[in-house]
């Protein structure tokens, strides 16, 4: 990357701080998973930190973000407290989704993070619809909100990708689809799965402008995302942005990624954006080693605190199991626990007078 201007240097230090926090958080999440504090599937942003921070930096508060199941870092970068993210991973009451969602389903309405989604491609149509709501309610222009919808490289092959991009383009919606290309969908390479492996070109089928950016370069990501968001807000032109980075570990915490060659693993390690940015800033004199270490120590303390918070947080209340099934209460809603009879003892007793009515037989 080109040498950064001094103003950028300060910003970059801030970005490094966030990247280090996410890195630390994710490594700790992996550890907590191994220690059975976290269950289910757990997908990490390791290797994707520059992309996470660059994209989040481009978003305005009023913008809406739809994410995938690989979203811890996005939540943190968007402003959710690491405590509440960790508590969610732990399945605790103070988790950002109340312990109901887990790693794949981080949602925080207050920061306009409208969810991580576990069904591949599932987030694209709702994100498109959110952009429709924005378009119907606010005029285009620099003050308009926009929607950013994240997806993985492998997700460009599912039907909802096609339908959503087409809808967004036909309806001219303020949305930026960001393909976070980490080279793999689980163990499948982009080339094996996508007949057009230059994924940003796939916008052509909808006349959606596409571009590709180095996902390890936080400023490049931020700037590309900003300009895409601007076109979305101002011109109601949906955009397709591809960021290219590497996945440092397996698909999820439990995947040993044996399908990768040592060379591939080594290449990924070499591309790691976190030490790279650190080295760059230290090299440029924007940061001395002590300050860099302090950033790392801060991150470790923040994550320690998040883990302690998550440990302490109580379990969700089993008594509120049915509280969030519906927003509008409704008669006869099912509330039985396994093994409950259909009718509580006595519940039908008042019907018994009916039994005195004349019967057919």
């Amino acid at each position, binding site marked *: 990357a080109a040498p950064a201007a001094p103003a950028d240097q300060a910003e970059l230090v801030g970005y490094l701080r966030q990247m280090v926090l996410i890195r630390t958080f994710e490594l700790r999440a992996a550890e907590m998973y191994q220690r059975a504090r976290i269950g289910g599937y757990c997908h990490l942003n390791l290797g994707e930190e520059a992309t996470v921070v660059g994209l989040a930096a481009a978003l305005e508060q009023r913008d809406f973000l739809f994410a995938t199941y690989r979203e811890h870092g996005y939540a943190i970068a968007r402003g959710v407290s690491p405590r509440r993210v960790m508590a969610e991973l732990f399945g605790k009451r103070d988790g950002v989704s*109340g312990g109901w969602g887990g790693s794949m389903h981080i949602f925080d309405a207050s920061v306009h993070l409208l969810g991580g989604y576990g*069904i591949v491609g599932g987030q694209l149509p709702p994100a498109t619809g959110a952009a429709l709501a924005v378009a119907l309610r606010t005029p285009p222009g620099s003050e308009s909100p926009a929607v950013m919808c994240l997806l993985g490289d492998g997700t460009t092959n599912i039907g909802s990708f096609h339908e959503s991009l087409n*809808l967004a383009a036909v309806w001219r919606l303020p949305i930026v689809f960001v393909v976070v290309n980490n080279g793999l969908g689980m163990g499948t390479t982009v080339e094996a799965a996508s007949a057009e492996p230059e994924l940003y070109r796939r916008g052509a089928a909808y006349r959606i402008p596409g571009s590709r950016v180095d996902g390890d370069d936080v400023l490049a990501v931020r700037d590309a995302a900003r300009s895409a968001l601007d076109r979305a807000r101002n011109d109601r032109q949906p955009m397709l942005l591809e960021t290219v980075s590497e996945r440092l570990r397996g698909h999820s915490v439990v995947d040993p990624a044996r399908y990768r060659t040592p060379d591939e693993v080594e290449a990924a390690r070499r591309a790691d954006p976190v030490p790279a940015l650190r080295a760059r800033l230290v090299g440029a004199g924007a940061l001395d080693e002590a300050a860099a270490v302090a950033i790392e120590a801060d991150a470790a303390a923040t994550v320690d605190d998040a883990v302690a918070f998550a440990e302490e947080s109580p379990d969700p209340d089993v008594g509120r199991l049915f509280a969030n099934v519906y927003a509008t209460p409704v008669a006869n809603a099912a509330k039985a626990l396994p093994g409950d009879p259909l009718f509580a003892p006595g519940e039908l007793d008042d019907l018994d007078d009916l039994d005195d009515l004349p019967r057919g037989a």
Partner: protein
Amino acid sequence: MAVVTYRQALHDTLAAEMRRDESVLLMGEEIGRFEGSYKITAGLLAEFGPERVRDTPISEEGFVGAAIGAAMLGLRPVVEIMTINFSLLAIDQIVNHAAKIRAMFGGQASVPMVIRTPGGGGQQLGASHSQNIEVFYAHIPGLKVVVPSTPADAKGLLTAAIRDDDPVLVIENLGLYSTKGEVPDGEHLVEIGRAAIARPGEDITIVAYSRAVMVALAAAQNLGRDGVSAEVVDLRSLRPLDRRTVVASARKTSRVVVLEDDWLSYGIGAELAATIQEGAFDYLDAPVRRVAAAEVPVPYAKPLENAVLPDAAALTKVIGEMLDATAFDR
């Protein structure tokens, strides 16, 4: 009270709700320029314009999912899926997303949307266009599913659905669109989650929903002439299911038959029979019987289609058998 068709009742309700609340918008294939595949939305494009009467490409998954996202931001989309058969293209969005979003995200979001879609066979549309697969949706927590059988209920349930903050499927029926009935003027809501006694009776209960209610009522009337007093329970909602009303009727008459247009095995009637045998075990004089479709992909040829779909004759035959078996004194 005006007498209008089920189609007209739906149409008028959509128009009224759109006038009342500008966050209501319609989405679906051919609902605007084409005026709706079954003409429910005729004229609405002219009144409300293309932003609120939104023709979509053929992208069921896309536009149903888009309605979800729009609803999450506070709009109240009413989506038309041309027939319930095509809902299978969108079912991931309905079941894995609309139904889950509220609970899965800890109650932070709601999805106030409606999906209108007709089921129904008997139109010679062949195997992939003649299904009654409401049980797919009725099975899913987080959804509400209503099945109006009359123009009045079409109005009342659709109104309730639009004003509800949860995803509600309004399952209409191709065979009902042209049927007529009285519809209350002005505001009319029918509570979701409650069944109705469509016809009171003493000797046997017929439980039905949607088009089958009409068949049941006609059969009940004929039975009346033979001195058999049949009660007809119209479920109105499949989820939540008003088990109490069904069981009350079963306890009263001691004989129950379910009439349903879907396939027998694992259909709606299975839940009813299961419910009744649990709630009215000591009251039943005979097992609950189900009159449902034959378990084949629905054929095109009329004589075959007729053989497959349940009708008044099959219902009446079963009722006769039940009355005989329980020594009913005619």
